């Protein structure tokens, strides 16, 4: 029916590049090499902020993600969620989960909760943590949550009314929240616009979990304190897992990322050697003429 696109449509060299790429990616995932992961100051800062939570402090973890970048976004979220649940168990920190995108609530929360079951299983739902699922409205929902938590989160993901959830009793506005973990792969601007610790005096800090490519985007906010810190991509996840002492997806993908990037650099070098060689050959040929 449609136009057929076969692998044969690509030149042989491209097919070899693809094949080698697949092989090089598969090897470290199937058999991890265990390259050391140096921890950057910013991930250490994020970890320390999370680790500073005390009994009765409230942590919000909001997921505004999309499914395409699942393997970039989910590893840091998984590490952060593990940490949050450990803090809930050990120190009595209260954790609120929700997503402002459908994928954020359905894939990120649900899939990551499956992977972190051993961490939340010992906790009491409604007293230690709650999941409000998807809050429609993107930035509007965030603005609503900041000004009226109970009015925006009327029912949880199980259909329980907010009044029936004991831990939500005294949480009225963003000033009753201690810290925020905001996970996004689209537009990080919404975090400092709606949930800035500079505006909400009760809010002590916010961490933005985002793609590595978005780091320059959030840096102006980090410089001014509208976002306190950030965790970037798989690399940030690997570092966070090292600090937490619970290795997961992030550490697994780090070896693959190292090899993938080296492969990319090798291709750039080969392509340029070939280009310079052909240019030199053409020049000498034209001189001879």
């Amino acid at each position, binding site marked *: *029916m*449609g136009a057929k696109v076969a692998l044969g449509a690509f030149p042989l*060299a*491209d097919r070899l*590049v693809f094949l080698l*790429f697949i092989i090089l990616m598969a090897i470290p995932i199937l058999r991890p090499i265990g*390259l*050391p*992961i*140096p921890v*950057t100051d910013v991930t250490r800062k994020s970890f320390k902020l999370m680790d500073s939570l005390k009994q009765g402090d409230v942590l919000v973890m909001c997921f505004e993600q*999309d*499914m*395409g*970048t*699942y393997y970039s976004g989910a590893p840091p979220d998984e590490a952060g969620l593990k940490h949050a649940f450990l803090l809930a168990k050990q120190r009595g920190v209260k954790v609120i989960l929700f997503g402002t995108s459908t*994928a954020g609530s*359905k*894939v990120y929360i*649900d*899939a990551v909760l499956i992977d972190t079951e051993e961490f939340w299983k010992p906790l009491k739902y409604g007293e230690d943590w709650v999941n409000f699922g998807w*809050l*429609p*409205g*993107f930035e*509007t*929902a965030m*603005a*609503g949550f900041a*000004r*009226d938590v109970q*009015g925006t989160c009327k*029912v949880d993901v*199980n*259909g*329980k009314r907010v009044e029936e959830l004991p831990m939500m009793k005294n949480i009225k506005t963003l000033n009753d929240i201690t810290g925020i973990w905001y996970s996004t792969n689209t537009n990080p*601007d919404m975090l400092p616009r709606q949930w800035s610790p500079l505006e909400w005096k009760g809010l002590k800090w916010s961490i933005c979990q985002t793609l590595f490519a978005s*780091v*320059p*985007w959030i*840096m*102006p906010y980090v410089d001014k304190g509208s976002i306190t810190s950030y965790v970037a991509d798989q*690399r940030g996840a*690997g570092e966070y897992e090292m600090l937490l002492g619970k290795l997961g997806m992030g550490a697994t993908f*780090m070896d693959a*990322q*190292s*090899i*993938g*990037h*080296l492969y*990319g*650099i090798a*291709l*750039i070098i*080969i*392509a*340029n050697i070939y*280009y*310079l060689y052909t240019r030199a050959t053409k020049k000498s040929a034209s001189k001879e003429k």
Partner: protein
Amino acid sequence: MSLILKRREIPIAIFALVSLLLLADYFTGAWPAVSREIIGWAIILWMFSYVLGVTSLFRYHLTRIQKHSQYWAYSAVLIACVFVYLFSGLLGGVGGISGIPASKAFNDFLWLNVLAPLQTGILSYVGFYMYTIFFRGARTRSWDVGIMMVVTVILMLNVAPIGVAIWPGFGPLGDWLNGVINTGAYRGIMIGVGVGLIAVWVRAMLGYERAFLGELSGGAQ
């Protein structure tokens, strides 16, 4: 009466009033209850945008099926998928009303094991193109392209742990490029976007920007 309701001044006035109220509350905190109420309405309106989206999707694809346009079968598959996903979700239970557990499990399966891997797979395809670009497009034809190549290589080695293992300097060097050069450029972009947004807002309040009324924007008339 209907002529009065059709006047474009009414929605412009509503827009101006609402945005000014929210803005004033943001800076002064004078009307928190009013701004809460307005935001609540906005969330409800947002939900209606989904109804609008689904309606246009159906209208477009049902017409294609009816006319047997090229690739109309894909439209039929899409409509079928919408119904399967919608009904499995509704039968699985909504808003605390418990439904059929098998239907909920099937709906979750579709999302987590079909849709999510498909979308991730589609994006992963970009990876293959990137490697083709490295191989075919990365030609240092001029000095500026050369600088871009060097920066690309430094940042690639900065992100991957192996870079720092090769030479520890890739860490601070990459961080400097990202934190100073890139951030500086982004700061400029953000200021530009901010100023542009204020300009659009003022234009909308004055009635020059009418895209939100379903009209093409134009200058002062």
